[in-house]
């Protein structure tokens, strides 16, 4: 039945059998998908690959093959390896950026704490001086009262 053929069998111009290995993953409404995969891998290689896999994994395999084939068509030199390089570069840049930012935070933290400690110490010294002066004043007034006797 010609109208029931999957995209692969249409492309290959053959009858689509009931147990066609391609038909679950290459529906007739998306002919480009099989065309890309066929261009890069070839029909028999894809069939062998899918046949070796358990049924429940074949859909994911077909999707990943499609992705790789598309990337290879777009970039015949590097394919999806170019994407891997790009991602690795992004990761390196991000890690370096993160390290710099974290170092800046550490510096700002220690600056802030040092500054706060210095202020605290200055206030503490001032308070001590104040207490000393108060003590002096108190001692003076007490000794004055004592020395002057009873008014």
């Amino acid at each position: 039945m010609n109208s029931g053929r999957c995209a692969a069998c249409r492309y290959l111009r053959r009858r689509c059998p009931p147990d066609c290995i391609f038909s679950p993953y290459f529906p007739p409404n998306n002919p480009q998908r099989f065309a890309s995969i066929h261009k890069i891998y070839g029909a028999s290689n894809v069939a062998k690959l899918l046949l070796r896999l358990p049924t429940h994994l074949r859909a994911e395999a077909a999707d990943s093959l499609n992705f790789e084939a598309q990337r290879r068509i777009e970039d015949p030199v590097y394919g999806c390896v170019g994407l891997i390089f790009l991602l690795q570069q992004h990761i390196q840049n991000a890690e370096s950026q993160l390290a710099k930012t974290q170092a800046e935070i550490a510096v700002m933290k220690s600056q802030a704490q040092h500054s706060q400690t210095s202020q605290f110490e200055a206030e503490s010294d001032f308070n001590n001086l104040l207490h000393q002066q108060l003590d002096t004043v108190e001692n003076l007034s007490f000794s004055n009262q004592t020395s002057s006797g009873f008014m």
Partner: protein
Amino acid sequence: MASSSSYNSPCAACKLLRRKCMPGCIFAPYFPPEEPQKFVNVHKIFGASNVTKLLNELLPHQREDAVNSLAYEAEARVRDPVYGCVGAISFLQRQVQRLQKELDAANADLIRYACNEIPTGLPTAAGSSSVQPLTPRNRPSEFNRRIGNEGGGFYQPPGAFPLPYSFPWNDNSSGDMNDGGGEGGM
């Protein structure tokens, strides 16, 4: 640069294909006889005739890189018949996203410190500032937006591709390892 085959030593491709390695063999510069597995993988996944067509469409100076990337993809597919090197791409994308989040959080902290919003636990004297206000760090524009939304053809699978297995660059710090995928029968 791979050495070309000598007249009495066929390249790995012609050895596997059991044919005479002619002068000008398109495979000879890139598949030396000392590395047989490289062509075995490439032939298994792509097929010799597809590789020939691919190489013929490229300029000579591009072919070595093309062969090396094909060999990489083929090896990844042999190791992982379900995801091939797409598994590595998914993993790396997750790493990029994780780092982006960490970077965003770190930059937010930096801005808060610069504005003195993070308490340090000690009283500040009135009228004095303990920290010189800093301008927020200028990040390269690529980190000011989410990595992955650029028009660079990033992989967006219809359903997320789980991680098939550990790659050499797996840092094990991400909790995204999927233990349910990648079972490929060979």
